């Protein structure tokens, strides 16, 4: 969150995919699995690119300034462009096969550094354990690290890795499977997470897609750990989740407003966040298009919620859950302002075991699944007891 706040203060923007990013901010101490994913993002960034590490929230500002300086170092980027591995090398490294050469390298355009002052960089922030959370980091490789990965995320990969004859560029082709209508349709293996904007950090959802519908899903936590407790107390986390959901619903304006309110709520002092939040709630409530867009998505009954270990307020559809999030945030801010400092009541029970995740997204399309997941207002994920694979067929 501190990173997002600093990015906003500089007038930079957050990128939503590695292709658009100039700066990679890694927050906290990533474990080995996450570090690998971050490396994957790093490989996907086009350059000029800069990677900085912020171990605590208060460091972020200084690190971003370093990143800005680093971006202007043209000689360094020229070297970086020559030395970085090509996509094919990365794929070969992963798949152990020779691939055709595809460098993702166009010519760099070297402007004079002076000409780029005050440029608008986009930061991707890596994850953050222990300092703040809800970061935006933009990897969404639909790749399976077990087989190959590189510049291309979302490559079509099938089940069979043995038959490299059929694998253009070292990427196995998709295989057919029976679709809902009984006709055969290609099944794509796509991995969501562990680092993805507006996505619970560290969560990996391995999906089989037919078209854009998730027909099978398997959830796990990278490095086998859930998000740790962090410094964020009170309602800020809930507001951050609201911002994510609004962003996913394609309402950038309201999402930006929610992020601003979140930053206000994080600052000690007056209860300015309360009135702003009330205004946001009214605005969201007034939007009938949002209601129309989100209603009916993955309606959960009392039994469903209970069976999934979700709190009672997860009952209803995605729109109702969003309204519940707003109500809780308003109440949380009011409680904090009333001197109930450090109230964590709203965090209690907002956990979800990965066991139940796959059931929640089955049969939804990719985008809807993300909306539904964001609407659950998850504050903490627990690794499931068993790794479930779910499929309907």
């Amino acid at each position, binding site marked *: 969150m501190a990173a997002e706040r600093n990015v906003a203060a*500089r007038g930079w923007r957050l990128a939503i995919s590695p292709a658009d990013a100039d700066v990679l901010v890694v927050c906290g101490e990533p474990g080995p699995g996450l570090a690998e994913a971050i490396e994957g993002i790093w490989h996907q960034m086009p350059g000029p690119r800069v990677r900085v590490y912020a171990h605590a929230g208060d460091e972020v500002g200084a690190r971003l300034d370093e990143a800005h300086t680093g971006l202007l170092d043209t000689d360094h980027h020229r070297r970086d462009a020559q030395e970085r591995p090509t*996509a094919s090398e990365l794929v070969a490294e992963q798949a152990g096969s020779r691939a055709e050469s595809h460098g993702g390298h166009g010519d760099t355009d070297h402007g004079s550094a002076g000409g780029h002052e005050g440029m608008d960089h986009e930061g991707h922030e890596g994850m953050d354990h222990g300092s703040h959370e809800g970061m935006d980091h933009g990897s969404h490789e639909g790749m399976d690290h077990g087989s190959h990965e590189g510049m*291309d995320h979302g490559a079509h990969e099938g089940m069979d890795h043995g038959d490299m004859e059929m694998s253009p560029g*070292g990427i196995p082709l998709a295989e057919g499977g029976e679709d809902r209508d009984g006709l055969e349709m290609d099944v794509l293996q796509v991995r969501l997470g562990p680092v993805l904007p507006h996505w619970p950090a560290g969560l990996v959802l391995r999906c089989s897609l037919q078209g854009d519908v998730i027909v099978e899903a398997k959830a796990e936590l990278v490095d086998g750990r859930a998000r740790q407790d962090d410094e964020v107390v009170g309602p800020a986390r809930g507001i951050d989740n609201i911002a994510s959901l609004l962003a996913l*619903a*394609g309402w950038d*304006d309201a999402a*930006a407003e929610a992020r601003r309110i979140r930053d206000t709520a994080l600052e000690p002092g007056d209860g300015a966040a309360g009135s702003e939040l009330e205004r946001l709630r009214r605005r969201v409530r007034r939007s009938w298009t949002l209601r129309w867009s989100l209603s009916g998505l993955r309606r959960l009954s009392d039994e469903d919620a209970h069976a999934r270990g979700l709190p009672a307020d997860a009952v209803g559809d995605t729109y109702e859950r969003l309204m519940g999030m707003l109500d809780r945030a308003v109440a949380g801010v009011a409680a904090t302002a009333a001197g109930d400092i450090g109230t964590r009541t709203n965090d209690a029970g907002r956990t979800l075991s990965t066991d139940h995740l796959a059931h929640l997204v089955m049969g939804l399309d990719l985008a809807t699944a993300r909306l539904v997941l964001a609407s659950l207002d998850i504050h903490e994920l627990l690794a499931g007891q068993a790794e479930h694979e779910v499929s309907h067929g």
Partner: protein
Amino acid sequence: MADPMPMTDSPITTVAPGWAIAALGILGALAVTAAMLDGALAARAGGGPGGKMGGPVRPFGEAARLMRQRRRTTVEADRLLWRIGGAGLLVVAALMVTVVPLGEWTIFDLDVGVMWFNAMDVMVWALVWLTGWGANSAHSLVGGYRFLAHGLGYELPLMFALVAPAIAAESLNVGAVAAAQEGLWFAVWMPVAFLVYLLGVAAFSVWGPFAPAIGTDVSGGARVELSGVDRLVFEAGRYALLAAGAAFAVPMFLGGGAGPLLPGWAWVLVKTVALLAVLVWLRRRLPAFRPDKFMEVGWMLLLPAVLLQDLVVAVIAVWRS
């Protein structure tokens, strides 16, 4: 292109082909205006200072950034189709404005100018889809298909919305349609067609509520793998389409260059900018229309409404003649 055949009674003069450069310049200026306005609105929404590069100067900073950023490709990308898709939007927007009369001058005075515009906006289907397809990436492909899903919802209503002014003017020539609005703009007595047309413009520009094809929920959709200049051209194409759509609405619904005091060409520009501002602002107000939900609205609500509009217009046209 065959030689344009100006109609004998057309109020429009066809200018020398060289003037096409000027038309491109105007389109470019309009697109930059739209981008600046969007930046200003974004800065206002974000609250606080937008830093040095916030607000209306944002598009210039962004352009500088993207020009410096390297182009990248993905493994096994269908590079040719991918680049065609990304660059095509700008080309289509330029071809759209060739039939829009600026006051009394136009590049092509086609007898079927309305159809020409319609053909161009259908091209966008292919281009956005190719951008999604070419990158060989799952999210990108999903984004491309989402645009087609939207297309199924908006394209027919848009076509029938374009039919209404043509029926009333008894001509498919854009100049003649503009001239037929003596005293009363078509936007006034065909409000449904006008609104549906504006929705269509937002839709073929992948703009605002019609942006799920490049939405955050699919990690940037068709845009996800674009970097550097490719991304710049794609984004510029979107703004240019928005500008071209707004410009085409002027002769079709807003009486062309008609207006007091100012010369015709100035009125065309003023009306275009006003409409463009409305379209840009739309993005701030509305969340995305999810393609699966919008399909129903397009077929069950917009299409019948706009057909009814056409019927009313046709009856009035027959009665008047």
